[in-house]
């Protein structure tokens, strides 16, 4: 059933392309139907595999002479991320309802991107995973370059090149792993059982990890993220921040860490105080948390605030992965879900509800418009989403970041106060943006009367409701997701990881 998420999405692409160019309404409806259909398929698949153990969905030989298979499989981590993809995809279509320039092409690229994302989350053959990973690159480029705003062609090209460089690094590592293993297979589980020589893992792990982590916004390779997010049209920013960054984190966990667990072992010597790649990446993740938050604090552009906040929040994901403690890694996966939903919502408010109406994202210009009065719905949603983003209890961010910090406390406690600092700054920048954009005192600047701004439409309300509900549900009942995630972390795929530094 889960495989249909991929097929429905690509079927949607094909039908979009066949539609006549004028059929804007049909194109929107079809996109919504496709996204909802994929989500329904995910729910059905979840019902069938509620335990979160690894379950093979499809497995047929693809290129027998190289031992490559078309192998789709899902565990709890995949299902969690599939749910996220489905939610963000539906909301993204709803928030793209006002696209009327080359509509069918927009949705064709949009659905192709979604299809690639579903494919990555479901692939259990490294080669197949890589194929889907690259399929997702091209639609991003066209979505941003064609329908974007500020410096769209620059942002789009930067994003495409960063992604492609990352995937090139992954490709080197994957081919090398295939050849060194000599097992004539690309199956993740089979490869994870191969005992690669430690010196090989020591260079393959950082190569593949960084290759994927570029897309997850690892500092200092994060610079594509703010420019890309800002340049993208609302629906695409939601997908980028909500889902595509998770592709990177997922790849880190699923490929880099699962295949080369001993790459995280101590080197046996210390350079600049670092004893292992694990320490290096944990520190980079921490820098990302603090740096992203600090930079978000001083932005003038509303969307850049959210863009940098994504870098900060993704830092928690990578930090959680590097703890190598069950609680930290579970927190990391939960944070992927949580950040996906919240970032999607924040970008929706900024990009669609505010920018498409006021045509400015400058915080100083937004203030005098008194958006808190003129767009009360947008203000409310932003306040709620901001609370979730700050990590207040009751929202998904709280459980996720708490678990990551608990894991980090066990693994490397000196880092935790710094991460805590990141959270405090996070409260500050969210507060600042909220205050300046929605609740500033109307000075003598230009005040725009309420009737000048078009009211919030039904699709926007529906999209916001879906994402808010998801965040609150995950915050109040994290057990639902943890029941999926924990068994997946105990699956045989991570045996090597558990035997190594895992405690």
């Amino acid at each position: 059933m889960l495989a249909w998420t991929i097929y429905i999405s690509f079927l949607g692409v094909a039908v979009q392309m066949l539609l006549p160019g004028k059929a804007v309404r049909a194109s929107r409806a079809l996109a919504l139907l496709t996204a909802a259909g994929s989500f329904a398929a995910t729910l059905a698949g979840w019902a069938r595999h509620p335990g979160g153990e690894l379950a093979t969905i499809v497995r047929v030989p693809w290129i027998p002479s190289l031992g490559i298979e078309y192998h789709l499989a899902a565990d709890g981590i995949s299902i969690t991320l599939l749910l996220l993809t489905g939610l963000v995809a539906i909301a993204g279509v709803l928030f793209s309802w006002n696209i009327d320039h080359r509509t069918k092409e927009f949705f064709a690229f949009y659905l192709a991107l979604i299809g690639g994302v579903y494919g990555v989350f479901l692939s259990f053959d490294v080669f197949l995973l890589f194929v889907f990973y690259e399929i997702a690159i091209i639609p991003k480029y066209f979505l941003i370059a064609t329908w974007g705003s500020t410096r769209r062609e620059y942002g789009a090209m930067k994003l495409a090149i960063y992604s492609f460089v990352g995937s090139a690094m992954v490709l080197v590592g994957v081919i090398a792993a295939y050849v060194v293993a000599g097992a004539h297979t690309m199956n993740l589980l089979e490869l994870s059982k191969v005992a690669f020589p430690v010196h090989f893992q020591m260079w393959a792990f950082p190569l593949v990890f960084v290759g994927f982590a570029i897309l997850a916004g690892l500092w200092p390779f994060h610079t594509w993220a703010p420019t890309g997010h800002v340049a993208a049209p609302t629906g695409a920013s939601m997908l980028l921040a909500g889902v595509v960054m998770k592709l990177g984190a997922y790849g880190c966990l699923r490929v880099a860490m699962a295949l080369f667990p001993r790459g995280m072992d101590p080197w046996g010597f210390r350079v600049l105080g670092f004893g292992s790649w694990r320490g290096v990446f944990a520190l980079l993740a921490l820098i990302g948390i603090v740096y992203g938050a600090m930079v978000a604090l001083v932005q003038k552009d509303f969307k850049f605030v959210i863009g940098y906040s994504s870098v900060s929040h993704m830092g928690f994901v990578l930090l959680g992965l590097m703890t190598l403690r069950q609680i930290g890694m579970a927190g990391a996966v939960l944070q992927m879900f949580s950040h996906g939903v919240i970032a999607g919502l924040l970008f929706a408010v900024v990009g669609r509800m505010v920018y498409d109406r006021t045509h400015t994202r400058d915080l100083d210009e937004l203030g005098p418009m008194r958006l808190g009065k003129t767009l009360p719905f947008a203000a409310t949603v932003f306040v709620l989403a901001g609370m979730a983003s700050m990590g207040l209890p009751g929202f998904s961010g709280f459980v996720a970041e708490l678990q990551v910090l608990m894991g980090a406390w066990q693994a490397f406690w000196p880092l935790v106060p710094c991460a805590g600092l990141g959270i405090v700054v996070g409260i500050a920048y969210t507060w600042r943006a909220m205050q300046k954009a929605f609740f500033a005192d109307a000075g003598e600047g230009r005040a725009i009367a309420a009737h000048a701004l078009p009211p919030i439409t039904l699709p926007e309300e529906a999209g916001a409701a879906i994402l808010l509900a998801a965040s609150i549900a995950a915050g109040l009942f994290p057990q639902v997701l943890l029941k999926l995630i924990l068994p997946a972390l105990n699956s045989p795929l991570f045996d090597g990881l558990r035997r190594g530094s895992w405690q």
Partner: protein
Amino acid sequence: MTGTGYAEILRLVMPETIVVIAAFLVLAVDRFFLTQAGTRVRFTVAAAIAVVGCGGSLARLWMAPQHAFLTEGMLVVDPLSNLVQAALLILTILAVLLAVESRFTEHVGEYVLLMLMATAAMMFLVSSENVLVIFLSLELLSLSLYVLTAFSKSSIQSAEAGVKYFLFGGMSAAFMLFGLSLLYGLSGSISLSGIASAIGPHGLDPMLMVALVMTVIGFGFKVAAVPFHLWAPDAYQGAPAPSASLIAAGSKVASFVIFAKVLMIGFAGAEGSAAWRAYAAGYVPVVAVVAAASMVLGNLAAIAQSSLRRLLAYSAMAHAGYMLLALAAHTSESVASLIYYVFTYGLTTVGAFGVVAAVETETGSDKLSDFNGLSRRAPLLSLCTLVFLLSLAGIPPLAGFFGKFFLFAAALQSGMGLLWLVILAIAMSAVSLYYYLRVLKGIYVADPPASAGPLRVPPLNLTVLCLIALAVVLLGAAPGWLLRLIENAVSAR
């Protein structure tokens, strides 16, 4: 050694013979029956005869595959040569079909004749392991291509391209002949295996090194590898589109196959090693250096181009660099991956030149700005271009990606020593995405010029281009079939 009569030889070279007969038939029909007809009719008839001829030759290859090894490797017919010949015929058929609508010449019969002669030369080239026959076929191929390049008499660029191609080609032929004659002097044999067995025991003496370098220069020119590439941008830009696609596709396939044969059979025992910090003299380090130079220069220079044809020329150098990697690896898997790569590359390039031709006829030039907004003016043509360029960039699930993957995996399987070259190749292919995306940005993102209406593409061209695009997608999504075919052919040697 004796005992092979002419009848037997004729039977073995039946596929080539059919092509040659078709070539003369084209000329005769055009000369005697169609003097009054318009260019379009003449091209249609000539193309029809050529397609039937190539098709007949293909059928012969398919139905009655031969197997023979004649005196001194003069004629080697085996599954591998049959397969490569079939690939060459397919590429020629496509190039001829895309030529039907062109208007650059009055001399239709001669033009198609030369295309078929070039094809026959390529077919002889790949079915020989004898330096004399190799040189003769190469000359027949080159001379046909020089004329094809300069064929557009009204275009000064075409003439310039022809002269440049000819001068560089003549020079490199001299180098190659010098290298081959040194080989003969060293070994007293003109067959590749004879040469190998004569020089093998002595190892690398300085004379052999000279012969090796000369030979690599000669073939390096044919495959447009850096630093023997100077003719390529001009030839690609000036030549009529069908000639350019023949140079870029068919001739590339044939040259790479024979290059591999000469190195791997003729210089067996003189491989050397290009492994990082484990260098040993031989042909592998020479090839590795040329490969690295081609990848770097080709990809970086392509970024600066504003004409699509020149961009394709520089990207061709880059691709030649990737393919040379397979020669540096010199295993049977790497040869299989080379053949997959070069064939799918040829297919893609024929398609790309088909697109260039279609746009050129409407806008009069191949500047990148002329492609602006093409997706609004010709959606199907743009989709084909998307497929071709992304395949060249190596994006899955298109054939170009699988070609690269097989190639790099095969190169690493020969030993981790080539890892540095593989890393360079993958890094450079990340660079290449930039300039391919730049073209696609013009097509999909930029707005068309205000006055521009829909672009008219002849239905035949559009059909052929769609078929090629479909093939590129299918060969990418299901590469197992072709790969098995190639691997069987390679291992059957």
